[in-house]
């Protein structure tokens, strides 16, 4: 890449000149051509917001494919409905506010897709539309659009649905069944019936749960892609998952009969999806490295508390939303020391 950029102009300079510009003019005549005036730096890296958003969508593809495999074509339709609703809402709100259209940055697509991946596979389509609308309208546009939102839009949309329609939001279907037999999620069955789900099923995703949260394998593939591309801060999934594992094993060691083991904690519910795709949402998480650690640890502790002691079987969404709320404070108190500030006495 670098090599190529360097060589092209070098080659050009050796070629016969095509109309050497302006050399004939006497030096006192002003140069007529309007050059570009802009602030330094005059060169930029090849990064782009839209490119990052596209990468997130690619990273979500394995999860989406596994979701469709387990929950059928309805899952695909759900995704399309969710994305369409999110994009349309964004377009409409830009129109109403007379703001420049922003759907091309791809963030609405990501929000719509992420939202659907966190919904139960039997949720009515109109509820998906409500969720997408709330996610984009309240979660994003009311704060001024992409970049200014405090809470993760997709999770906010989901929290709204959860509060509005608790029953459809907790109705799960068996994977790979044609007539959608209802079942329980691994976390639910542990919490209310004290039964453990086999680890392999947890890992592959052949369990009840949201469209995109069941297969840890697919999520890890996509998540590692994001980490590799540096579009997600590795500190957050690492600290989040580690905290859950450590904090979870603490209780497991105290009373293995009452509390699940850490592996179950890690691979059940929406933790993987949350850790790799929700908690790493750049906008709503701290910008400082130290802040990222705090974010992950805080979310992990909240999650374990909700899972073990709360009324709900799952708390990934709430743990991330709560840490989103703390993010401004974290950013504020984890400002890196200025260069020279620390060492100088």
């Amino acid at each position, binding site marked *: 890449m670098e090599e190529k950029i360097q060589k092209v102009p070098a080659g050009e300079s050796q070629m016969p000149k095509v109309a050497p510009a302006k050399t004939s003019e006497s030096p006192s005549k*002003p140069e007529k051509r*309007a*050059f*570009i*005036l*802009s*602030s330094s730096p005059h060169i930029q890296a090849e990064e782009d917001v839209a490119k990052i958003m596209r990468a997130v969508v690619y990273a979500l593809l394995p999860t989406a494919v596994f979701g469709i495999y387990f929950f059928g074509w309805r899952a695909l339709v759900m995704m399309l409905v969710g994305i369409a609703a999110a994009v349309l809402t964004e377009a409409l709100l830009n129109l109403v506010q007379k703001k420049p259209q922003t759907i091309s940055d791809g963030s609405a697509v990501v929000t719509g897709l992420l939202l659907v991946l966190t919904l139960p596979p039997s949720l009515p389509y109109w509820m998906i539309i409500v969720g997408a609308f709330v996610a984009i309208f309240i979660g994003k546009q009311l704060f001024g659009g992409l970049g200014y939102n405090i809470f993760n839009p997709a999770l906010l949309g989901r929290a709204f649905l959860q509060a509005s329609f608790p029953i459809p939001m907790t109705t799960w279907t068996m994977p790979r069944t044609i007539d959608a037999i209802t079942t329980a999620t691994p976390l639910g069955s542990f919490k209310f019936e004290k039964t453990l789900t086999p680890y392999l099923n947890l890992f592959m995703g052949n369990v009840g749960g949201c469209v995109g949260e069941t297969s840890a394998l697919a999520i890890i593939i996509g998540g590692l892609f994001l980490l590799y591309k540096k579009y997600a801060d590795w500190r957050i999934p690492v600290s989040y998952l580690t905290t859950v594992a450590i904090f979870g094993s603490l209780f497991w060691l105290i009373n293995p009969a009452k509390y699940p083991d850490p592996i179950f904690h890690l691979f059940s519910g929406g933790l993987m999806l949350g850790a790799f795709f929700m908690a790493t949402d750049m906008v709503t998480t701290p910008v400082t490295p130290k802040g990222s650690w705090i974010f992950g640890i805080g979310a992990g502790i909240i999650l374990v508390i909700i899972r073990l002691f709360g009324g709900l079987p799952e708390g990934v969404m709430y743990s991330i939303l709560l840490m989103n709320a703390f993010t401004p404070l974290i950013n504020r108190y984890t400002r890196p020391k200025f260069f020279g500030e620390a060492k100088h006495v």
Partner: protein
Amino acid sequence: MNTALLYSILSMGGIGLLFSILIALANKKLHVEEDPRIGQISELLPNANCGACGFAGCANFAEALVGGKADLSSCPVTGNDAREVIARILGVDVATGERQVAVVFCRGGDGIVARQAEYRGVATCSAAQIVGGGERACSYGCIGLGDCVVACPFDAIHMNPERIPVVDRAKCTGCGKCVTACPRGVIELHPISHHVFVMCKNEDNPKVSRSVCKHACLACMICERAVNGQGFKVVNNLARVDHAVYTKELVLPTEKCPTKCIVIVGTADEH
């Protein structure tokens, strides 16, 4: 029932008495001196201590007002009458002398002034000023990105189609926000009775300024000669008006100026 009545009177009266004595005592013992205006203003405030102003209650808000740290408009509860009185106590509303209005000293709009470059970056004048001065070739005149329009709290400055700001003299309060907003110092405050201005700031060599702008002052001295030096003077390649001499009736130089940079602003009956 009678006992209940008796007890209630006794207990409430007792509590009330106890605390009022305590407060009265405390008020005497624990008194702290304060700016008398704070007391006066807090009298006028609603004293609902609702906190809508962002301060910890009306007394605190009054203190901030006196200290100049708060704006009266941030209290949504105070009625307009009370506001006037408070403003008077604060001495904010003291008008002195003649009304001043903003005047824009540049006519070098798009198509008039030469274009030196294509500007890319933050679309404000102050930002363009630090990047080679933006699109327009004149380094003295209006940059045209409208910092003054944004700065005006009274909606009194607007861009004309040539992207030169125009002041609505009826709406302008002479607050001077646009003057500080302009990175080039193109806007000045002048008494509303002044009508004639040389609308140019270019102090360059006439040869340079001529090549840059059609409405630049060329220091040609025509105006100065037309009035025999009484009211116009060319200093540093730029003609200047002596407002003490000339306030109205400047038809002669305005007509004679070859680049039309001497302009009559406003009308005689506006003030």
